[in-house]
């Protein structure tokens, strides 16, 4: 009889995975809503996209992807018993998350400063709403990374039970995944 070597469930807590898929569903409604709103107001969206700086979007992409890689590497390091290495990776990953927030915060602040707000038009509403919604998820994710770093430092995962660490990591990767669509959709696809 053939026995599958695949795991039955994803790494981490199943409830967190259900939460992750629910979050992805919510974000997908915004993405699809954006695309269809653009279909109705193409000129407005084209003009709105001209007000964005895609280089800042790319910088933030690099921050999130690097942070995501470090978190995945930290889980592996913890698994192999390298606690100090895992801690270092988590600390840098958190700092990159904070760097993302700094850039995005600047971007949103600048957007308001030059006179655009949620009432300007549909494009600016969706840009600010989706950006701020994702921003809040990054804030939560960065908080989760801090908690994970504290727990790794305390040696909470030394017994090989990594479910908490894997759950937090999976949440952080979800934040990453959302940005992989949000960035090209709003900044690049014209």
């Amino acid at each position: 009889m053939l026995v599958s070597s695949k795991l039955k469930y994803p790494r981490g807590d199943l409830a967190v995975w259900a939460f992750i898929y629910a979050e992805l569903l919510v974000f997908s409604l915004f993405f699809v809503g954006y695309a269809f709103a653009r279909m109705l107001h193409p000129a407005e969206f084209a003009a709105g996209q001209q007000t964005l700086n895609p280089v800042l979007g790319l910088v933030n992409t690099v921050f999130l992807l690097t942070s995501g890689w470090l978190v995945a590497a930290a889980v592996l390091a913890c698994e192999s018993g390298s606690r100090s290495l895992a801690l270092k990776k988590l600390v840098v990953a958190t700092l990159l998350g904070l760097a993302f927030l700094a850039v995005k915060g600047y971007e949103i602040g600048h957007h308001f400063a030059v006179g655009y707000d949620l009432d300007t038009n549909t494009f600016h509403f969706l840009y600010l709403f989706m950006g701020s919604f994702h921003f809040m998820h990054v804030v939560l994710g960065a908080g989760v990374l801090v908690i994970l770093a504290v727990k790794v430092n305390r040696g909470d995962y030394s017994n090989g039970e990594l479910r908490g660490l894997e759950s937090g990591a999976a949440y952080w990767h979800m934040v990453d995944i959302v940005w992989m669509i949000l960035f090209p959709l709003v900044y690049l696809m014209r």
Partner: protein
Amino acid sequence: MKTGIRQHQLIIVWLALLLLSLIGLGGVKAGFHGLVFSLALLLVAGLKIQLIADWFMSLREVRMFWRLIMLGWVLVVTGLIAIAFIFTPPV
């Protein structure tokens, strides 16, 4: 699999993700725009998400059902976005 090899695999995936991201902005800076370019960017986004899901979230180690949920989500979302872009009148 040895941890060292897995760490190296993660580095390769990370570099591939960075490269794919640079290509997108590079295209915009080179003056690419329009429907075909937008659909190509959607395809790249889908690929990047699969890389993150399979390697960073370790979904490649899990039964197909869990991977199909992610793949299904990517296909539905990018598919609907593509439909909206295809039917958007040119400015």
